[in-house]
């Protein structure tokens, strides 16, 4: 990210001259108080929001200059775990996780194979025919992670992935994210949960009023 600015209103600067480089396969925590710009940072990478100024390069591609119709193709290479899971209520766990593969036109066999693979990985295989409403918060979060991973994206973004979970479950989810990073995926987690980044020694970006005030691996 080079000199990135994002305004929500004329007088509200969500990101203020953000410069940032994340290496391939890195694990990064983005922290800061509410309204500091954590979610906005993730949304800009994901092209859910567009930067008002500055450039964002992902794998050498300038996503800040993409046309609207090119955005879906960028998103297919980025997994996003939403704070509110964003699962389709009327679809089963299997169908929810299969969605990104349906979108890219994968074959039935491929879909079955890959969905089972990720469901096994997040340990929710036994709930595959349930609908999200019958799952606990932790289970829903696992499904959301499985869906974000099923396309084997290069980058996984997670916005407050433990926001609705108790501490044990939160650590479990973070453990899962670390395993994903170990497998080669770049993982960026936005969180204000102190327990999370205090227990795990990983690169931490601290945002305050849209500015990066600290960037490094804490002792």
């Amino acid at each position, binding site marked *: 990210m080079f000199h990135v600015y994002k305004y929500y209103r004329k007088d509200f600067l969500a990101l203020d001259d953000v410069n940032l480089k994340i290496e391939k396969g890195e694990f990064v925590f983005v922290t800061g108080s509410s309204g500091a710009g954590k979610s906005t940072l993730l949304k800009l990478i*994901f092209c*859910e929001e567009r930067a008002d100024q500055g450039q964002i390069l992902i794998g050498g591609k300038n996503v800040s200059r993409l046309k609207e119709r090119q955005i879906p193709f960028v998103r297919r290479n980025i997994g996003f775990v939403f704070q509110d899971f964003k699962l389709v209520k009327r679809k089963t766990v299997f169908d929810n996780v299969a969605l*990104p593969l*349906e979108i890219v036109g994968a074959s039935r066999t491929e879909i079955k194979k890959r969905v089972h693979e990720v469901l096994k990985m997040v340990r929710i295989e036994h709930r595959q025919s349930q609908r999200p409403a019958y799952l606990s918060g932790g289970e829903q979060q696992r499904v959301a992670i499985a869906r974000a991973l099923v396309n084997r994206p290069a980058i996984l973004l997670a916005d407050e992935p433990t926001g609705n979970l108790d501490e044990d479950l939160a650590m479990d989810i973070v453990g899962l994210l670390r395993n994903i990073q170990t497998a080669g995926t770049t993982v960026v987690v936005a969180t204000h949960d102190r327990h999370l980044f205090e227990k795990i020694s990983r690169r931490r970006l601290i945002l305050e009023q849209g500015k990066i005030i600290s960037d490094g691996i804490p002792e």
Partner: protein
Amino acid sequence: MRQFYYHLKTALENIQLNQTMGFFSLISLGLTLMLFGVFLLFYGNVQGFVQSMRESVQFSIYLKDGTDQNAIHKLKERLNDDERILSSTYISKKEALKIFNASFHDKGLIERLGENPLPASFEVIVKADYQEAKSLEEIIATFAAFSGVEEVQYGSEWLENLKTFLNLLRLVGVGIGGFLAVTVTTNIANTIRLHFYNRREEIEIMKLIGATHGFIKIPFFIEGLFMGAMSSVIAILLLFFLFDVAKDYLEVFLASMGSLEGLQFLPIKFLLGMILAGSALGGIGSYISLNHLLRLRNPDYVTKTP
């Protein structure tokens, strides 16, 4: 093809999800299209009637009383040789009387007159290619000039009027058709819009995980096509039911008006055309609706948080 299976499945889920609303939409669309069907039925039957009348366009050459056999023979030969004439039949004064008596029960009418007032005549049928008013006039002029010919009667003026009426009807049909097409398209566009709003959360999620607008649109488009086609099928069924009920009464009425033609239901190609047209209107309706909905950059159902 793989994606087509997904789109078809999603379209069917859409229909199932909105079945109550869909059912009422289909009934209302079916009734609308049925109105057009009623018009087509009317038009088709009038056209059939005109066609059958055209096939029997004829004129009568009435002969002066006392015309000698030689002149009658000459006229007959001339009629046989004329390439514009399909057939001609000579009806003598006696035969004319027989026909008259067969048609009217009051046999004493002619007898009271004392002598047979009916003239001998030729009943002439013209070939289809020469049934236009101008050709008919030329033919009539040719035979009116023959010796022994009293008068040539051409009773097809009303047919010309009917043809004019048919042309007018065609224009009215285009007007009604256009109006109903707009109604159907708007109705389907609105239904698809409601179905779209019912699934707005899901659509937003689909966009977030990389679905293109095209991918999101296709199931709704299929739904629109299906709705249009189904509405036409409902319209045809209703129309058939209505036709079946009204046919006997209408035929009795038409027979009393002098028509011997039976009423015909719409031919199969018209029915297929109606289904195709319904489907096309459904497609257009959903296309308009979806294009509008997906063009909204910040639709009201997306909550943006800083």
